[in-house]
């Protein structure tokens, strides 16, 4: 039975006896048409779209821990489609369009909230480059607004406008951007996929690929061998580890990104604000916590925890941007495992191994991409051709020189 306000009331009056499991815990079958490795947002979304749009129901999602336990449950929940390059922008706009239908498509409230995102401008040169980006957004229908200082001050009066080391001169805003409840996204996809027959198998770690004659046959797991016609890998920070089992090296390094949340406070911050000069971005959750973050720690890491200098650096950025948050207290910090690619953009492509497909290199932009990533990866798995919005995310673009380098930082992941 579906979720609805009426159902909530009915259950409330009958002692909540009617609520069933959000998803089954099936035992793995011997063979699936498609096995998705990774029960995070992207893997679950891929399974959902395979069933929903491409009629593939003999699909399994294998998760080594508990579903939604990776970056989907460990991020700052920002959704946006404010990219510069043609290789990226249409894809993220597709994602934004999915976000705008999320609740209705999934019958699950993942609390998509389009309260807007503002990238602050600190110099004329930056305004010029933001204008170029804003125009890319306009040209894909994503929408954008260039705010001058006064308009910005009207919107967010609490920033440090008058005594700043990096003066605030305006901002580039996408009003359709915002946040979503990260766990709710994973659970919504899991529940919807499960209801369409997808087997979500938790505590099932892939320990190897069975490859015969350059063709993948299935995966070895902690719960035994599972046969598969095709295998799609969507394991974010574990990409290097998992693909190495198939003998592949990737243009990816795994890094740690810390994120932070404060104690609950009454509403103060309307949307999402990003402060490039100070390496700081912030929003406020519906529960009242200020959710913020900054740069990655900057060194290869699988530890899923960061160090103090970045904590201080991020807090300094916050204090410089909005000194009024000083007496708010940091409640929790955590470290996510980022698969940082060599040009800062993702890879969604076939691999040299027949039947093995890869989805990764999301850097710290994976959350906002979740719906589109699932959609285009499902498209690739189902049709063996890249989705129109994802033709640039090829694995060979590095060797051939067709890079998608938004920042122009070059082949150094910790600069993207």
């Amino acid at each position: 039975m579906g979720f609805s306000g009426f159902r909530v009331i009915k259950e409330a009056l009958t002692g909540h006896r009617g609520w069933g499991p959000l998803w089954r815990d099936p035992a793995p079958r011997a063979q699936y048409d498609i096995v998705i490795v990774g029960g995070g947002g992207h893997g679950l979304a891929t399974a959902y779209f395979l069933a929903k749009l491409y009629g593939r129901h003999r699909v399994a999602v294998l998760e080594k821990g508990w579903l939604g336990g990776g970056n989907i449950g460990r991020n700052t929940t920002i959704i946006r489609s404010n990219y510069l390059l043609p290789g990226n922008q249409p894809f993220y706009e597709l994602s934004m369009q999915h976000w705008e239908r999320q609740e209705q498509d999934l019958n699950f409230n993942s609390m998509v909230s389009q309260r807007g995102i503002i990238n602050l401008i600190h110099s004329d040169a930056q305004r010029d480059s933001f204008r170029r980006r804003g125009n890319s957004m306009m040209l894909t229908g994503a929408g954008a607004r260039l705010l001058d200082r006064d308009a910005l001050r009207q919107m967010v009066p609490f920033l440090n406008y008058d005594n700043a080391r990096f003066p605030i001169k305006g901002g580039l805003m996408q009003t359709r951007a915002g946040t979503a409840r990260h766990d709710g996204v994973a659970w919504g996809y899991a529940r919807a996929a499960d209801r369409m027959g997808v087997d979500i198998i938790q505590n099932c770690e892939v320990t190897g690929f069975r490859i015969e004659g350059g063709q993948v046959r299935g995966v070895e797991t902690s719960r035994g061998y599972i046969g598969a016609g095709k295998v799609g890998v969507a394991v974010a920070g574990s990409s290097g580890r998992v693909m190495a089992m198939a003998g592949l090296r990737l243009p990816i390094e795994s890094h740690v990104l810390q994120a932070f949340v404060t104690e609950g406070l009454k509403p103060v911050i309307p949307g999402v604000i990003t402060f490039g000069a100070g390496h700081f971005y912030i929003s406020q959750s519906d529960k009242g916590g200020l959710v913020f973050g900054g740069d990655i720690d900057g060194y290869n890491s699988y530890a899923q925890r960061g160090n103090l200098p970045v904590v201080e650096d991020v807090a300094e950025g916050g204090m410089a941007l909005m000194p009024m948050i000083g007496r708010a207290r940091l409640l929790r910090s955590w470290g996510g495992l980022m698969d940082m690619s060599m040009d800062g953009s993702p890879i969604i492509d076939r691999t040299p191994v027949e039947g093995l497909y890869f989805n990764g290199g999301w850097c710290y932009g994976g959350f906002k991409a979740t719906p589109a990533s699932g959609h285009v990866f499902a498209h690739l798995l189902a049709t063996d051709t890249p989705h129109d919005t994802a033709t640039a995310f090829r694995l060979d673009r590095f060797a051939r020189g067709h890079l998608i380098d938004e920042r122009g930082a070059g082949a150094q992941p910790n600069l993207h």
Partner: protein
Amino acid sequence: MSRLDLSQSRDALIDRNRPLSFTFDGRPYQGFAGDTLASALMANGVQLVGRSFKYHRPRGIFSAGSEEPNALVTLRSGARAEPNTRATMVELFDGLEAGSQNHVGGLKHDLMAVNDLAAPFLSAGFYYKTFMWPRAFWEKLYEPAIRRAAGLGKLSMQADPDSYDRGYLHPDLLVIGAGAAGLMAALTAARAGAEVVLADEDARMGGRLLAEGGLLDGAPATQWVAQVLDELAALPNVRLMPRTTVFGVYDHGIYGAVERVSDHLPTPGTRVRQTLWRITAKRAIMATGATERHIPFADNDRPGVLLSGSLRAYANRWGVTPQARATDPVLIFTNNDDGHRTAQSLLARGVPLAGVVDSRSGARSLGEYTTHAGAMVTGTKGRHGLRRVQIRTADGRDSWIPCGVLGVAGGWNPNVQLASHHRGRPVWDRERLTFLPGPDGPAGLIPAGAACGHGSTIAALADGRRAAQTALAQLDRTATAPALPQAEEEPSAIAALWHVPGKRRAWVDLQNDVTVKDIKLSHQENMRSVEHMKRWTTLGMATDQGKTSNVTALAVMAELTGNGIARTGTTVFRPPYTPVALSVLGGGDTGANFRPRRLTPTHHWAEANGATFVEVGQWMRAQWYAQSGETHWRQSVDREARAVRSAVGLCDVTTLGKIDVQGPDAATFLDRIYANTISTLKPGRVRYGLMLREDGFVYDDGTCACLGDGHYVVTTTTGNAGLVFQRMEFARQCLWPELDVTLISTTDAWAQIAVAGPKSRALLERVVDGVDLSNDAFPFMACAALTVCGGLPARLFRISFSGELAYELAVPARYGHALMERLMERGADLGVTPYGTEALAVLRIEKGHAAGAELNGQTTAAMLGLGRMVSAKKDAIGAVMSRREGLAGDSRRLVGLQPVDPAGKLPAGAHLFAEGVAQGLATDEGWITSACYSPHVESYIALGFLDRGDQRLGEVIRCANPLEGQDIPARVVPAHFVDPEGGRLRD
């Protein structure tokens, strides 16, 4: 008032001779020095102190420490207002103001309390199931309502007025926690001569020894504590840090700690409010003690219900108990002996006792009070404060016991958090029914005392000494073990009781209003892994981080799954241990000094001459020099640019990076750094150089001057100075260490001033000491070391960014200011004019020189029209990759653009389209990189990258700027608007 009278609490640690007045919700009260806000409120009979997060249930003080879930207040007012502050951790000071939070209307009559009536609808995860129709209503209606209701305290919205600083300590041993174990550990290590830091979150050291009221060596334990602290304080190798919370364990023995330097004072005065310490310790001892857990039962959240050990602490340390009236009797509910110790303490202090309800059949009283063995608490009454408690006796009979306070003793959870900060999991101990620090904790962190299950005083003392000896041994120090004081045994004999079964709501997480029912629903909906349960119910996500609820909750879940607690496991503990103010984490300068700023040698001169400054990387540069009568920056910039084209201008270009390259292999080295050849450069000559990244994209450009054999000066762009130096060192040390070459940055050593314009030679001839500057003697791209102004050593380079006859003159930085003045004075009749970065930009755009906007890391040499500079004859960084199909095949080229309508404006950042095409990313042919008004061309001009631009000169294209509603026709022209042949700069 329920302050215990003097005779009965003679050893309470408050100073009755120092009364302090304070207000709570505007009402005046009085407490004493040594009180916390919580103990002072109790002393004044205040039971109702707050409201719960979700149901807005009335709440009272629940604990005596940092685990407090209920008593959250907003401390102080105005810009110093501090929301969500635990009353249990606030030291009372005279004039303290505190207010309750999270209610509409008064605390007593909170209108939001209606939520409690709606509780059945607000079950775990309910919001994921509704608020979805109609779609538009989420942002407009539901979410704003939820946001308003959520949150706890309010921010003042004013900047924090206090100051904060940072410090770094490097002790041999950091002891975290100054209770029995910590004190013993510190004493052992200190006597062995180790550098010791002893930190405790409490203002007063001693931990539970201050709360137990027990004896050590026959005297009150507080006396032993005082003796030990006196000895430690006297030792030079010991640093005592009270009011200091170690909040996080980081890599390689680094600990984050916050010292609350002056939070116990009305205002910090000249001191900082707090200090952030980064403590690098060779070893650390985690003597963080334990936190008591409660036992959920029906309506267990009323004011007056609190932890038994805290009740004991209030009685012994502060001489207070939390009844509304001193005559109200106190009841204890326990599943172990500790509850009886509270009963003993209360009896000893003359507190009326209603007895002890002990879930263990066969439990016995340890004093003159009734014990209901095998009984359980099954309900409570009392709207704003406890009045009656219902118990079910062993034989199943229900009865109501009148009482004002109920102390709950469910056993103790070791504070293992720090040991799990590196993601090591605690392990379950079936004996003690607790989680203990796991074996895979942070390297160098040694748990001790109650924090690893040695909870009794005597065991904690011994274990603290053991831990110190272990640490010292690892540091190769021999320790003589101090004798342990005598103490009596304190058995626990705990029998598992995680919650009292029943139909009514029994709270597990008091602050977030998570009940046993919610956990059952979570289980029913297959949210069974602890992480799913936590996220579905929000258990443990409140400001108390689940200190009093996590273990109980997963015990309940284990019961439901039948998996057992060990297999159910815990959630991950992450920093901070307790919440930390952002102002101390981001301490130090937040305003204009947030980051260092670099000033040019002529900065003060520019200031005095009306310059407006702009941040360029770390630097402040003069943007333009407004003259009287100029009302718009454009007037100043146009004047400055014209002056350079017609006479002579001066611009401080010190900010360009300067790297001194010396050594016999310098030329070979530079050939590999630059895409073009340098080795053919002769002394006294300068060459333009292009640097690529190894991936083949343009990285930086600048000039390379040969000052003599094996001696070069490389200049970089302002923004890349540091990075270029780093990459050059990489090449020197990591790629070609066999080359004999050394690099020294000299950016700051020289003040460098661009002297540009047709009259620049005439001006320079007036300052250089007897050097022939004629075109033949000192041609374009010449350089020389010479002297100026009567013997001042200088370097002169004939290079041009503006396209005019131009030079750059470098003198030792301390003379930059004076040189500027001298050039202005000597050039007065030539119309010499200082110009800023805006005019500089205009001049270089007119000349078509690439700068930051063109060198953005996404462009190839070919795009810049410099493809031929990439030598195929030699190895250089980036040469090979620049030939990749994707780069070689990129047909976009740098072009000039002029609006078809001479009055038209060209915006940088506009995208370029052929006339008449449908504008979209598919038809996008490039973008405008830089644009300005050109006083020389007398219209707007721009540079941009256009697909096949080199073959489209004369074509009219569209500059689309939909962001600002513009679509401007412009003509494609060559990328240099002045002197295309370059005659001017060569004459």
